[in-house]
Structures are given as C-alpha cells and as structure tokens.
C-alpha cells in the first residue's frame, strides 16, 4: 500500500548533490513529494528531508538506491516517530472588514502569524505538519488566496 514516508538523509554539502538525489528519483520513477535541504550539525554535511509516496517495495528501493550514491552518508526512515513541520506563507484577499476579523480569528486559532498587512491583502505565516497547513488553507479559500508558498516538510526523529 502506498503511504507517505519521511526520509532523513545526511549528505555531503557539495554542489550537485541535490541534483544527484533529485535525478535518482526521476530516473527510477520514484514519486518525490517534497525535499528540503539545509546545513546540518556537522560541518560540511547537509541534511535532506525527503517525503515520498511509496509502498514498502518502492521505499526499500528508494533507500537502497540513495545509499549507493557516494555523497549520501546516512539514511533513516523517520515516518513513525518524528516532529514534522512545514512553513507556509499565504497571501489572502480581504474582501471586507468582516472577513478581516474572521481571518484574524483563524490566525489565532491556528497559532499562525500575520507578517504583512495592506488594505486589500494579508500575508500569513503558518508552521505545522501538512494536515494543519492544508486545513488552514482550505479555510482561507473562500476569501480568495492570491499566493501560496510552502517550504516542504522538514522533520526530526524524537528522543535520543
């Protein structure tokens, strides 16, 4: 059965590594859902968090094929027990004053933040897992969303 998996990988922080990883997914016909990259706690190494929709067989191939890349140092499937977060910026229309009040309420409920205000629009910054962000976006749809910019999921396994 296909499920979303979150894979955390430690890679060499060198040019071309992202291309290699992304290229591998294309070539092997794996479905990459999101990928985030940034420096890790070790100098010279970056952490890549990849979400992939796959069944167990494909997931095994994804892991093994990634492992074959010389620049990939460590791979861990952290789907089960991890803190998962995504950051999303939404620019939403304000059709009227009533709408403004409603949106501010939603922002408070979702513990989001308003980071830019004009007479016609708001930019809202929200972090959370994918479901939370999807729920927030669907609430705003009625007001007219002008732009969405999402970072993709980053994650960290819980505990030691």
């Amino acid at each position, binding site marked *: 059965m296909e499920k979303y998996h979150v894979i955390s990988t430690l890679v060499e922080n060198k040019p071309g590594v992202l291309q290699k990883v992304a290229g591998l997914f294309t*070539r092997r016909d794996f479905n990459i859902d999101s990928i985030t990259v940034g420096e890790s706690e070790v100098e010279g190494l970056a952490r890549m968090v990849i979400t992939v929709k796959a069944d167990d*067989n494909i997931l095994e*191939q994804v892991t*093994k094929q990634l*492992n*074959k890349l010389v620049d*990939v140092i*460590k791979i861990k499937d952290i789907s089960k027990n991890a803190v998962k977060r995504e950051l999303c910026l939404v620019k939403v229309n304000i059709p009227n004053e009533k709408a403004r009040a409603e949106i501010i309420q939603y922002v408070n409920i979702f513990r989001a933040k308003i980071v830019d205000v004009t007479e016609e629009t708001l930019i809202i910054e929200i972090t959370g897992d994918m479901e939370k962000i999807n729920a927030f976006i669907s609430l705003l749809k009625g007001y007219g969303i002008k732009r969405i910019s999402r970072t993709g999921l980053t994650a960290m396994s819980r505990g030691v």
Partner: protein
Amino acid sequence: MRGGEAIIESLKKMGVETIFGYPGGQTIPFYDMLYDADINHILVRHEQAAAHAADGFARASGKVGVCLATSGPGATNLVTGIATSFMDSSPVVAITGQVPTHLIGNDAFQEADIIGITMPITKHSFQPRDPDLIPSVIKTSFDIATCGRPGPVLIDVPKEVQEGELTKFDDNLIQTPGYNPTLKGNPRQIKKAYNLIKEAKRPMVLAGAGVILANACEELHEFVHLINAPVMTSLLGKGAIDETEDLALGMLGMHGRKVSNDSVNECDLLIAIGIRFSDRTTGRLDSFVPDSKVIHIDIDPAEIGKNVSVDLPIVGDAKNILNQLNDLFKNYKVSKDVNEWTSKIQKRKQELLPRVTYDDVPLKPQSVIKEISEVLTPDSILTTDVGQNQMWAAHFYDAQKPRKFISSGGLGTMGFGFPSAIGAKVACPEDVVVSVNGDGGFLMVCQELATVYEYDIPVIAVVLENRTLGMVYQWQSLLYDRRHSETKLGHSPDFVKLAESFGVNAVRVEKPGETKEALKTAIKDNEAVLIDVVVDPNEALPMLPPGAGINEMIGEYKLEKDVI
C-alpha cells in the same frame, strides 16, 4: 609539475599503461604534456570508440580502462560508452577536458555540463578545480570504479587546472564516508543458505557477471561440483563456468538455451550469484521460478528484491561468500534426489543441444559461429556487437574461461563489438581476439579500421552480412506480420574494399568452411583482418516474445541430434 602532468603521473602510479583518447581544444595542455610522457595513447577515430575500447580493456583484464576526450562534443560522444559500462558494471575512468573555470556557465565554445549529463550513468564524478587535487581525485576515482560493484567514474578537468602548477603531489584517498560496500557475506545468512541447499531436491545455480567481476569462477566451479547442481548463466555471466562442462547448461533468457529455459522452472531452489535478474534473463516475472525458493547473492543490496522476490539474500562479494559456502560443503555427500535431478538435466542438455551443423548457402549464422568455435581456443577472446550477431554468438559459442566473452548486455549498444575488441587486444596482446558484428553495427564504428591499422592491433572483425538490421527484422517477421519497416539496409558498402581502403586486409566468405580458413590465416598472419561473411537474412533465433514466461519460447528450436 603541472595538472596535466599530474594526471599522467597519477595514472602511471595506478598502473595504467595505455589510454584511449581523442584530443580537442580544451585538452591541448594535457596532450602537450603527453607528448613527452611514457604512457601509451591510442588515438581512436571517434570518442565513442575510446569509451568502448576502455570498457573492453577493463572487461578483458579486470583492470580499470581509461578513456579521454575533450569538452563539449568530445565528452558527449563518450556518453554512450559510459552508459554501456555503467549498465554492465565495468570499471572505466573517463577523463574529459572542460572549459576554463571562469567560463563555466557562460555557454563558452564547446562547453557542456558533462558532470550533469552523466550523473545517472556514472558511479561518481569529480571536477577538480585545483591542480593539487588531481592526484587524490584520480586515485579515488580508481578506488570507486573498482570497489564493490564496479562502474564508471568521470573526471572533468577545466583547462586551466591542466596548466596550473601543483604545490605538492598528494595522492591521499578522498574520504567517502558514504561509500562502504559490504564485501564479506554474513555468516548467519550463509549458514541458512547451507541449510536451504541441503534441503533442496532440485537445486540450480544461475551465475551472472558478478561472479566474473569478483574473480570467483574457480570458487563457483568448486561450489557447483560440491553440491552437484546444474549451472546456467546470464549473457554477461558467460565464461563464469566452462560451458563445455557437463554441469553447465548455457545461457538462460530471451534467447537462452532451450535446456536452461525449459528446466529453470522445475527447480526447487535457485541459487543466483552476481546477477541482477534483467528482464532479458527472466522473461515475465510472475512466471519465473514460481515454485522455487531463491537465494540471491550480490554485492549490491539494491539488486536484492528489485525484480525477483528472494527467500534468502546474502549481500557481499561472490568470491568471499562462495569460499565460505565451499568450506561448509567440504566432504558433503550429495543426496540421491539431487544426483538424479542433475543427471536428468544433463541428459536433457545432450538431447537439446542446438543445431550448428549446416551446409547451406547463403550460410547459416549458426554454422559460422561453429566454425569460429572450432578455430578459437579457450584463451581466445570473442567480443560481440548487439543484435542477432550477439545472440548467435551467445547462444552457439561455448565460453570456457572468464573475461573471454565480451558483450554489451544491459545497454545493448550497437557499435560496441569492434572497439571493445581493440581494448581487449590491448589488454591481452597474447590472446587471439575476434569480434562478431552485424553489418549494421559495424558501420557505426568502421572508422576504427584506421586505428587497428595505425597501431597494428591484430583484431579479427567478423561481419555477419545479411543486409538487414537483423534483430528488429526478426521481431518484425515474427511479431509484426513481416512488415519490415526500415530494417532492410539495401545497398551496403563492399566491406572488403572498405577495409582495404584503410589498409586492413579483408576477405569475403560465402561457403561453408571458408570462415574457418580465413580465421586460421588471420591468426597465422597476426594482422588485423575483416572477414565479411554473407549469411542468410531470414534465419531467426528462437525467442521469448515480450511478456512471455521463460519457458514459452517461439520459433523453431532446431536440434543438433536431428542432423547427426
């Protein structure tokens, strides 16, 4: 010492004596330094041939083959050859020139992102931006190309790095913490394998190129005799076991020997070693060994369970694992069931030997391969091109030693046969080297006749001339209602005159017995020769149609016993 000199020095330190290459604008500094260097360079006539020759060299010798090209079009001309060696796990180091660093990204003349282009077809690649890095980069490239599952590595050297002075010659290996292939088989898994083999009543072994790459052929020989199991091979596994042995059944797969294809599904245990279960080897997967347990031994964990589901995986080097298994099977008494099974299969093998005896004119390709077999010795090297010629050779030629049958398996690259023979001959100058080609593939690389003449490389190029693109023609005959769309070559060159125009001797063969004579003369003269053999274009190989199971071959399988 400058960068280019460091390349040469590092290659020499790695034991390289010969490189195959073609100069160009961005490798002029390197070639200037090569002018005074004591390393052999073979100037091919197309970069693709340099890559194939390096590959042929690697396959014949087990050492790294090195090819070299300039930036842009020179580098992209290597791509087919690099992809070929990647698919067949051949250790090749490809060195390309690159535009000077300050021009990279500017669409400079003859600039191509060759690192990006070759990313999916190389094991790894480097672009040293500092001459000091060159010795380490070359040493590490050789290490990566050969360690674990072998494969090609590309080194892209910007022009000014070739010219720059080194401050020190430091060839420490670059740390690659992400690359730790498992070499030693897990003893617990090996013990489990021992038990599975002990319980099996109808075991069979399927050997792939991994056995040859691991230099584990003697161990395989010992293993199959200890457990008395019949052995099949993949196309690239040919030579892993002496195919004239009773236990060896021959190739399995789309154009496999009937005895292998018919028998494989009868086994109750398949021991697959150094093989990736290509679709050309297994046929339809859900009807491949449906009732059998599978032990899969491979150095690449990603191959385990990729195509065929496996009951017992063992990751590691085939030589190491076979040695451990052989230790367990010392003094092992083979069960009566297994002995009966194996004699039954051996008897079947004799019954189903394919027909090679013909006296037809135009010649049957089978009889041409038979004549080649009669002249060659176990130490001779046979390379093939791709298509019908390859399958005639693979099906009817018995390889007796490893690294003596060389063919483009995974990628199926037309034009591979002749240049890979050049590489093989350079690697093994004492051995007779024959390449079997079709007229289609040979024309893709016939310019290399100039190379063999210039460097006096006595390879024998057999061209099976049927004036068709035979394999596709055959598919069209069998599966597309004989609609031969664009597979008739029509007017072909006069291959004898073509060779002669390059200064290479050539002979046309049309009758039985003439191939043999031409080969004998060629071997005696020890000169490059082209033998143009006119064969019957309508002779087809038995085959598995696409989507068919391994034992569902179509086409008449003619038997030798019916003529003798």
